[in-house]
């Protein structure tokens, strides 16, 4: 009989091996899934993982990696702070939308004035939008003990309605011939989050994501607040005994994750997306949850996981167009990644023992 036995200490090696094993298992079972759909499994896997990086059109796909990866990393870094402390902000998608609306709104308010101050103002507004949207579940939690998972998740759908209303109403392009959607910020130089180096995919959002990684790393490793976050996640009573104020910690973690998600939305709307549209959000806020866990809630891990997840997005698109794989199959493929990660995670704290059971 096989049974699980708790390890005396969490295995450090396994904590880092689990993501790698999860990726490998996802490749194997994803391949089986694609085979069942009548596609060549090896070719499908190769298309997803190889084509964007080293294929014939890599010069086009590589910048896309940064463009897709940056918002994922930015949002996931914010989420990981809360997740480490046991504070579950599931509504980053909504905060991302609100950041985009606030940022675009400020930019469009100045149209067509040109000034170097407009873009920085939009950055602040985007951060503020995400922060406000995250403070709603945070304040409700600390004042009334509501569940932040439910409230933040439901606010995603409120934000989506708000987005539709903005795209069709207040922010609609007056010169847009009645089509829904705002003016295109890419055509408004003062508000455009343009590529910093042409053709590289590198925009201010990528810079912000890298700064967030470094900031989070220093915070968690060296700062009192990061230590408070880790202790609260490990042992809430011990954290309280040591002097952590749980209310302030909830406000900080929720606020920080909302702020970063708002920034991600703002950089996206001012850059790659260009305009507020009804279908502006594509699920970065939810995928970032997978990225955060795939990266072990560790800043460097999240950076790598964000890159990997961006790869499956782009590779998945290529597989859809070249091999005719259904979009749902790609989503299942991404879901498998989280599933296997959680499964292999078990072995960080437990090991398998083969033999007779001890207790009947």
């Amino acid at each position, binding site marked *: 009989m096989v049974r699980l*036995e708790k390890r*005396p*200490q*969490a295995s450090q090696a396994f904590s880092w091996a689990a993501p790698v094993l999860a990726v490998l298992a996802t490749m194997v079972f994803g391949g089986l899934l694609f085979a069942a759909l009548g596609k060549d499994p090896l070719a499908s896997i190769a298309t997803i993982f190889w084509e964007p990086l080293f294929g014939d059109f890599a010069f086009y796909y590589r910048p896309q990696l940064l463009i897709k990866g940056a918002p994922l990393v930015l949002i996931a870094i914010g989420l990981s702070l809360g997740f480490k402390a046991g504070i579950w902000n599931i509504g980053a998608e909504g905060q991302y939308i609100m950041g985009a609306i606030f940022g675009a709104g400020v930019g469009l308010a100045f149209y067509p004035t040109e000034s170097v101050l407009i873009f920085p103002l939009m950055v602040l507004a985007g951060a503020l939008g995400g922060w406000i949207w995250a403070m709603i579940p945070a304040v409700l939690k600390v004042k009334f003990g509501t569940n932040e998972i439910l409230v933040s998740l439901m606010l995603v759908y409120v934000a989506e309605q708000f987005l539709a209303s903005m795209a069709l109403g207040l922010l609609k392009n007056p010169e847009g011939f009645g089509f829904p959607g705002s003016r295109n910020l890419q055509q408004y130089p003062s508000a455009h989050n343009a590529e910093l180096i042409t053709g590289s995919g590198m925009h201010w959002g990528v810079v912000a994501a890298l700064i967030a990684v470094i900031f989070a790393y220093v915070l968690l490793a*060296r*700062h*009192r*607040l990061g*230590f408070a976050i*880790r*202790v609260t996640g*490990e*042992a809430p*009573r*011990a*954290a*309280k*005994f*040591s*002097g952590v*104020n749980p209310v302030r910690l909830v406000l900080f973690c929720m606020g920080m994750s909302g702020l970063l998600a708002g920034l991600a939305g703002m950089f996206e709307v001012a850059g790659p997306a260009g305009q507020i549209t009804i279908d502006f959000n594509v699920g970065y806020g939810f995928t970032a949850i997978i990225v955060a866990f795939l990266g072990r809630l560790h800043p460097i891990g999240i950076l790598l996981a964000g890159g990997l997840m961006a790869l499956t997005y782009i590779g998945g698109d290529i597989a859809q167009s070249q091999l005719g794989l259904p979009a749902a199959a790609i989503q299942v493929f991404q879901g498998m990644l989280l599933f296997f990660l959680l499964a292999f995670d078990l072995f960080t704290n437990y090991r398998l023992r083969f033999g007779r059971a*001890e*207790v*009947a």
Partner: protein
Amino acid sequence: MTAPLLALSGLTKAYPGVVANDDVSLTIAPGEVHALLGENGAGKSTLVKMIYGLVKPDSGTMQMHGAAFHPSEPRAARAAGVGMVFQHFSLFDALSVAENIALGMENAPKLRALSKQIRDVSEAYGLPLSPDRIVGDLSAGERQRVEIIRCLLQDPKLLIMDEPTSVLTPQEVEILFKTLRKLSAEGTAILYISHKLEEIRSLCDSATILRLGKVVGHCTPSETSARDMAEMMVGSILKTPLRAGKTPGAVLLDIQGLNAKSPSAFGMPLRDISVQVRAGEVLGIGGVAGNGQDELLAALSGEQPSGAGMIRFKDHDISQLGPIARRALGILAAPEERLGHAAAPDMTLTENAMLTGAVRENLERGGMLDWPAARRFAERIIKEFDVRTPGPGNAARALSGGNLQKFVIGREVLQRPEVLVVNQPTWGVDASAAAAIRQALLDLAENGAAVIVISQDLDELMEISDRFSALNEGRLSEPRPAQGLTVDEIGLMMGGAHGMEVAHV
């Protein structure tokens, strides 16, 4: 001697990294009250779990009435006539006594019939208990009766009791002992686990002493001194903590009319507590668990702020300061629950040293943490308090209970507190380590600190306290000089027998 009721021979049980029981043999005759003695971790619990069918031995045999006895689960053990009262009760607060008992029975009769049985048994054995009362309203002593009656209804031949008196006042202990003696006179054997030696001397016919999983001796408790038994348990000569006579100094901590709600739903609120603690003094606070101990510690450590003016330190009103501000002033605390409260289980000892040491040991500058300094602090604790661990990089949960306790107490003592509040400082710690911890607390007081020791171990409190008082239902009794207090007086301070004196009239 009559034929043995239960005979164990050569029982061995190994867990990864530790042999819990090594070739343990003992026999119990019908009606015998047999003590199982040993320190925490000596293997007492594993042994009784094997008898009760919770754990299977790796080797060795058990015989009941001369026939092979291999219970594969507690139900089989109960069917063979073994009943067990656990140290921690498994009762549902929201249900009545009769409902709780019915839940634990295989073929529970109708509630009305069961209630009658409960009344009959409780009268027969002097354990007054109404079957209709809600368990949540009962005292610890009464809850224990529910567990005992649950066992007695199954008419056991052998009753196992695991540390039954740790939750009782001295008066309640007397009532329990009368019941146990009556059971014994009727032929029920009792296997009695404890490390309270005086109790065993007054109750038990024979004793088996375990150390590190092995039987190290048998004795007749009434003919052996408590000191001899303790030394058999520990395997070495015990040192009694020393303290010099001293005169207490200025009042350091002044608590006036402290009221506080409990942070947890089933906790006990603190009611109008007033006491002063002076420099150089050890104030011992006794009381049955759950009478406000955790809440008092939380109020003093700053985890739970209290109303303005209720707690003063020297000239400061500290009532509303948080733990960090109180530590900066020199008021330190060590809670009872080691894993999860005093220490974070999955974090390293270095990180756990940082947990409370950041302020006073200068492990933090402008919010940035100095990990090398925290590591040195953890190493100092490990060295000076003889914490057995490979190093400060180990997780707290990898340490044994006693070693972690030494670490937790050491962490606070080494920060030179002016006021130190500890709850259950030696719970689960072996005798020599407990003596070392008590000595450290006495040394601290010697050097001018005010020490408050909250404990359920009365012997410990009598050994180190200058003044003694007791918590009962969230109220603190007037402190009295510890020297010369009798067990009866202490028992009354702890709340007597909670209105249960009617038993055995």
